[in-house]
């Protein structure tokens, strides 16, 4: 397709900037001078994928090597996909506009379960057979990383290699191995066998899964010399870890349209519902000097006038005070605004609030997750009502008039009392606002409360727990609505059919591959987008494949049941998860990693918070 025809096509779709390429800092190389071409695919729209930090890190890191050219690929929106199929345009990479079928690797990052149909659609658009078995040496290797890999069994039929944990090292080791194999005449089978010996590499085709009569897993057996368990990889020293000095700066507005500076990985808290809090263990911090200089460099090379600090819980960063002091020096001088997402309520000090207020007043958001202290203890969200109220008080006195609170519904052991607690907490915040003598004058308060449906995830203490049924959810939603009596509270509860599907795929096994393929063939894609999600088609796919989704999501799993992900080792032991599950049912909290070690197993790397001096 020539340039002119391509341009015409772009002009006929929404947001052509999604497909045009050519952004500032995008990397162009001479393809005849590289050994390995890597198509980094994000299975969602440009705006979402371009906001993803992991992709920015690996894109820059791969491209820092002369022998690799890494390019970006996103899922085309439905309007452009239609044009591509009409005009026989295969899925292309933004930098070179070459078809990714010519590449050596097609790599997906799997950030959420609801993107799986997009993975299949992108493979199909690229002109690849969907199933790994049907792809011989003629085709690129299809690899995948990201948090969903901790149980990517539903994608096992389609992906050649999964990367467990952080990709910076293991990805390059596999690329180097590929180069070696390419030199001596490439055999896919031999290569996969050799790759499986690298720590963190999971080749699903090298494992045989057998099932019991009741549908549970009987055994997972490695073939040949493949390891029995596959252990995730981490980067030990964050100060010397690769971090990009520039980001590709998009033309169109993306979701997080700013520079993003990572401050640490992992989280000390261990909230029992939170997968990220377990699979990214142990906590490893960057020193504030490194964070400060990397952040400054990013702003200089991108021209962004906004930067945010990124981590799972930024106020747990031990050097936050010196970091903010250092950063404010240059950000203020250069009219750059500094954003601090992911702050926790309990250690949100007045000085900190003042520092943020100094920069820019945006929304104030808290995530108490549950309405009563008992349930917050169950989920190990160690935040008290007093702390929530006193933080809101500080914020209101500082001029804020609206707060946003996030909750979950359907948590293990939840009763109507706990739901009522959500409404009562909101009411207490409203009442407290009006009781303040120095509240902002003439302004009304607004408390937004968003309540999502709990999805139990692998590698959390709640992996054994069932999700609530749709009927139960509707009953709970109606009950909660009836508990709210003031208009100052804005309650939002989304339709949660996607949460139910998410639970099925999060805890699913290989047999779901057939359902996925069937749903995809029926036209399912962009399942996380309400305008595209088609629950009827999914239901059809389940019944045609003879698979009951409730088997995966609505069942309490025994501690000794073999889970589809039990052969993967994310450094948190199953014994620890069982201990934590029992503590949850006893309404007992667990101290955070800095207070007391709970022997989760993540100290096996000899790095991070487990070895901090206190």
């Amino acid at each position, binding site marked *: 397709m020539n340039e002119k025809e391509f*341009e015409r096509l772009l*002009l006929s779709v929404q947001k052509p900037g999604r497909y045009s390429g*050519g*952004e*500032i800092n995008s990397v162009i190389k001479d393809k005849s001078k590289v050994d390995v071409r890597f198509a980094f695919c994000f299975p969602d729209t440009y705006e979402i994928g371009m906001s993803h930090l992991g992709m920015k890190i690996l894109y820059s890191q791969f491209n820092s090597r002369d022998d690799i050219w890494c390019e970006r690929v996103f899922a085309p929106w439905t309007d452009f996909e239609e044009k591509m199929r009409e005009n026989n345009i295969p899925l292309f990479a933004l930098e070179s506009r070459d078809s990714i079928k010519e590449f050596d690797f097609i790599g997906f990052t799997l950030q959420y379960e609801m993107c799986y149909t997009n993975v299949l659609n992108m493979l199909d658009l690229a002109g690849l057979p969907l199933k790994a078995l049907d792809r011989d040496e003629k085709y690129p290797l299809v690899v995948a990383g990201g948090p969903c890999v901790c149980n990517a069994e539903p994608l096992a039929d389609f992906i050649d290699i999964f990367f467990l944990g952080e990709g910076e090292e293991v990805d390059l080791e596999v690329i180097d191995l590929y180069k070696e194999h390419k030199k001596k005449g490439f055999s896919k089978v031999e290569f996969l066998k050799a790759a499986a010996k690298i720590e963190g590499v999971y080749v699903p085709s090298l494992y045989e899964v057998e099932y019991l009569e009741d549908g549970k897993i009987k055994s997972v057996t490695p073939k040949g010399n493949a390891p029995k368990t596959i252990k995730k990889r981490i980067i030990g020293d964050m100060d010397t870890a690769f971090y990009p000095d520039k980001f590709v700066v998009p033309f169109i507005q993306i979701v997080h349209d700013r520079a993003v500076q990572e401050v640490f990985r992992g989280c000390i808290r261990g909230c029992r519902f939170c997968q990220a809090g377990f699979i990214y263990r142990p906590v490893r911090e960057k020193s504030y000097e490194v964070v400060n200089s990397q952040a400054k460099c990013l702003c200089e090379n991108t*021209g962004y*006038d906004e930067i945010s600090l990124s981590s799972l819980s930024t106020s747990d960063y031990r050097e936050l005070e010196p970091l903010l002091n250092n950063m404010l020096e240059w950000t203020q001088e250069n009219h750059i605004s500094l954003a601090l997402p992911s702050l926790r309520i309990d250690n949100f000090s007045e000085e900190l609030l003042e520092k943020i207020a100094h920069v820019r007043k945006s929304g104030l958001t808290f995530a108490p997750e549950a309405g009563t202290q008992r349930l917050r203890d169950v989920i190990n969200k160690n935040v008290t009502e007093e702390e929530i109220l006193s933080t809101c008080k500080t914020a209101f006195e500082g001029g804020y008039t609206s707060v946003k609170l996030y909750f979950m519904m359907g948590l293990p052991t939840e009763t109507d009392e706990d739901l009522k607690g959500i409404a009562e907490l909101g009411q207490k915040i409203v009442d407290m606002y009006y009781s303040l003598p120095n509240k902002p004058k003439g302004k009304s308060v607004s408390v937004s409360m968003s309540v999502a449906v709990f999805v139990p995830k692998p590698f959390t203490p709640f992996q054994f727990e069932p999700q609530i049924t749709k009927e139960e959810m509707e009953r709970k939603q109606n009950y909660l609505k009836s508990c709210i009596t003031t208009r100052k509270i804005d309650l939002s509860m989304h339709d949660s059919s996607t949460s139910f599907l998410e639970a099925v795929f999060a805890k699913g096994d290989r047999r779901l591959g057939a359902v996925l393929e069937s749903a995809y063939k029926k036209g399912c894609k962009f399942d996380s987008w309400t305008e595209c999600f088609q629950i009827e088609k999914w239901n059809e796919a389940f019944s045609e494949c003879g698979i009951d989704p409730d088997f995966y999501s609505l069942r309490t799993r025994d501690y000794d049941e073999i889970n589809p992900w039990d052969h993967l080792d994310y450094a948190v032991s199953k014994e620890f998860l069982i201990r934590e599950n029992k503590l949850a049912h006893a309404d007992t909290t667990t101290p955070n990693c800095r207070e007391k070690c709970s022997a989760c197993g993540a100290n096996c790397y000899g790095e991070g918070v487990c070895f901090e001096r206190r």
Partner: protein
Amino acid sequence: MRDVRVFYRKKGAMKFVSHLDMNRFMTRLINKAKIPIWFTEGFNQHAYFNFAVPLSLGFEGQYEVLDLRIITPDYSNEQLVLDLNKASIPDIEFLDAKEPILKMKEIVFAEFKVIFDELNVELAEKINGFFAREQIITQKTTKKGGTKDIDIAPLIKKWVLKENELTLILTAGNENNLNPNLVLSTFFESEKIAPVDYSVIRTMIYDKNLNPFK
């Protein structure tokens, strides 16, 4: 503090960047290039710059104009162009920087080159006939959502068809602005022919006497 008028070219992938996105792009480019630009004071401080006339999505622009306010007195225009180009991408190329002579509102006309992929004799004749009309009525959607008939003939200052290239000088600016896409779609509709492919380049903007805007 002084105002500088910068001239640049917009092409390639940048053609797909809308005017709103151009604003963001330019803010970042100016930051990246470390231009000593003046920031507005007040609640929402931002770098101070102004585009002349917006360029439609999909058009190439060869004489695009941007006004900046510089705070460092000894920062030369040559340096400004150099710094901007160093920070920029090939599809936005800065050509020149000068002291502004006219005011933005003195822009009255813009010149476009409409290049047809293919143009046969029959179509060329039709084009010539179309532009020779005294009245060219088209429908324009009003702000209230309805449509009204307007005559665009008075807004077409000049037209020349040479081989497959149609040069148009159209009224531009805040009060009356005629988009070549509207002229072409009116042509195809009134002649009841299927639209043919073409691309558009804005080559110049003029004052009321058809002198290049400076």
